[in-house]
């Protein structure tokens, strides 16, 4: 028995269960996407509106905010302007970020090379779980270890209170190490095997192959790994706050108490009244942080694009 074209058309146009499920799936995943985007936009909008209030409502000069060295929002200076110079914190944040990245990078790349090139079996067996464990340790634990081990050590070696950029760098370096290591390992793993074979077949030693071929080819990926680590270091609050000393002063040495954007935020935000200048000034710091992490993201994307073009 053959079906008439009308019957067939009806059958083909009828929404089957599978077709309905398909629509459902799209609706669910699309709403998830909308929700995430909405949350991100809301956060950026909120931080921006609060952070900009310092300049619009409280009429603080943007340049004074970025270049001023005195941070004491509840006081005014000789000209009657509030002291909301954020430079010392910005410098503190950058210093601690760059230093910890500089210390972490050679260790991370060395470890990644060992895991991938020299002893893949042992690397996978021992180092993989270790790095994963390091990622999983809560930052307060790092901070606590920093407070009870690193700070006294710095104090006994360099004198002073022990709190400062140096202690912060020591703690942050360990915190970003697993991120940078595992991402560097990924970057090395992405280098095609035939690059290594080509190099070895030309009579290059294993070390020459690693140095001249594998690391060169993985450079964009390694740079991404370092920037990711820096982004993490820049945004880390709790552990840094516990060891840096929290003195919003221009850092003159690595062992003087200093402050970062995050440490001032975490120590200050509970002690201010919403809508006051003191509160708005903290939001401005948060805005700077947010913008900086956007910049880090941008850098990572740029490196990634350049890597693909090569």
């Amino acid at each position: 028995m053959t079906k008439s074209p009308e019957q067939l058309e009806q059958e083909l146009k009828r929404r089957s269960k599978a077709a309905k499920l398909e629509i459902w799936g799209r609706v669910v995943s699309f709403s998830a996407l909308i929700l995430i985007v909405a949350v991100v936009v809301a956060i950026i909008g909120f931080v921006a509106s609060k952070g900009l209030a310092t300049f619009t409502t409280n009429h603080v000069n943007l340049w004074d905010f970025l270049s001023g060295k005195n941070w004491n929002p509840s006081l005014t200076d000789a000209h009657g302007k509030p002291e909301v110079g954020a430079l010392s914190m910005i410098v503190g944040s950058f210093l601690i970020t760059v230093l910890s990245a500089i210390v972490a990078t050679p260790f991370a790349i060395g470890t990644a090379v060992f895991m991938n090139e020299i002893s893949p079996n042992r690397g996978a067996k021992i180092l993989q779980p270790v790095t994963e464990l390091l990622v999983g340790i809560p930052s307060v634990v790092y901070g606590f270890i920093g407070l009870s081990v690193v700070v006294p050590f710095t104090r006994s070696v360099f004198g002073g209170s022990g709190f400062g950029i140096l202690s912060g760098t020591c703690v942050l370096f360990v915190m970003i190490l697993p991120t940078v290591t595992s991402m560097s390992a990924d970057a090395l793993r992405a280098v095609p095997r035939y690059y290594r074979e080509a190099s070895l077949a030309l009579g290059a030693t294993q070390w020459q192959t690693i140095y001249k071929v594998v690391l060169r080819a993985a450079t964009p990926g390694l740079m991404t790994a370092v920037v990711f680590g820096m982004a993490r270091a820049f945004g880390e609050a709790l552990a840094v706050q516990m060891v840096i000393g929290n003195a919003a002063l221009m850092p003159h040495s690595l062992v003087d108490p200093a402050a970062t954007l995050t440490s001032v935020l975490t120590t200050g935000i509970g002690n201010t009244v919403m809508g006051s200048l003191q509160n708005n000034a903290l939001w401005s710091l948060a805005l700077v942080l947010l913008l900086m992490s956007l910049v880090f993201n941008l850098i990572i994307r740029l490196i990634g694009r350049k890597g693909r073009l090569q």
Partner: protein
Amino acid sequence: MFMSSDIAKPGTTPERHIVQPTDAQHPTVLSTEGLHVFYGDKEAIYEGDLKFARNQITALIGASGSGKSTFLRSLNRMNDRIATVKGRIMYRGVDINQPDIDVYEMRRRIGMVFQRPNPFAKSIYDNIAFALRLRGVTAKNKLDEIVETSLRQAALWDQVKDELDKSALALSGGQAQRLCIARAIAVKPDVLLLDEPASALDPVSTSQLEDTLLKLKQHYTIIIVTHNMQQAARISEYTAFFNQGRVLEYDTTSQIFTNPQVQVTSDYVSGNFG
């Protein structure tokens, strides 16, 4: 029907037929003696004793998994890290399969070109200068000279002489493969091993590559693994037929293709295995 269990019936044709080259003008440069290759417990090659004649092209043919690539990669010890190679690999009277052989120095003499063109993400010039610089050659004029002669020998010079600074990744497949050959011969090896060098190339590039190999024969001893039997017939003097980890037949190429002695070889070269 060519089956993995096919072995010629006794009495009709021999099971193996090995004729090593004896041409006095082309003495043996490289040979294997008692070669066995294991991947873990699995034995990949157990009868593969061949002699390779100097300044000649020897083709290794056989179905996928017959062990010809494994054999080739063992010759300059590229398999060291993934397989166990037992037996002797004699290169001009020296067993290069001894543990204390400097494999890096040995690979300068026994170079290799792979199936897939694998230029580095560097300029054409730097690709060829790579191995030279590793050996401490830094003088610009010396490098220039070797880059030019290598590219000329690989028949690529005329196409790339004005763009040596361009990335090697921009080359076409055939050009890239000839670049890899130029890169391999830049260190003036003695033996050149090629692992299916034309399998990723179109027919025109393949034919150019074959012309290049025929010219290179004057300077180098060439051993080439190929799936393309016409290619083996066109360019090689000697052909070895691999089957399940054994060399079943080895003779001059014309013998192998016109008068094979072993039934399995005969089936393979005549395409009678479907």
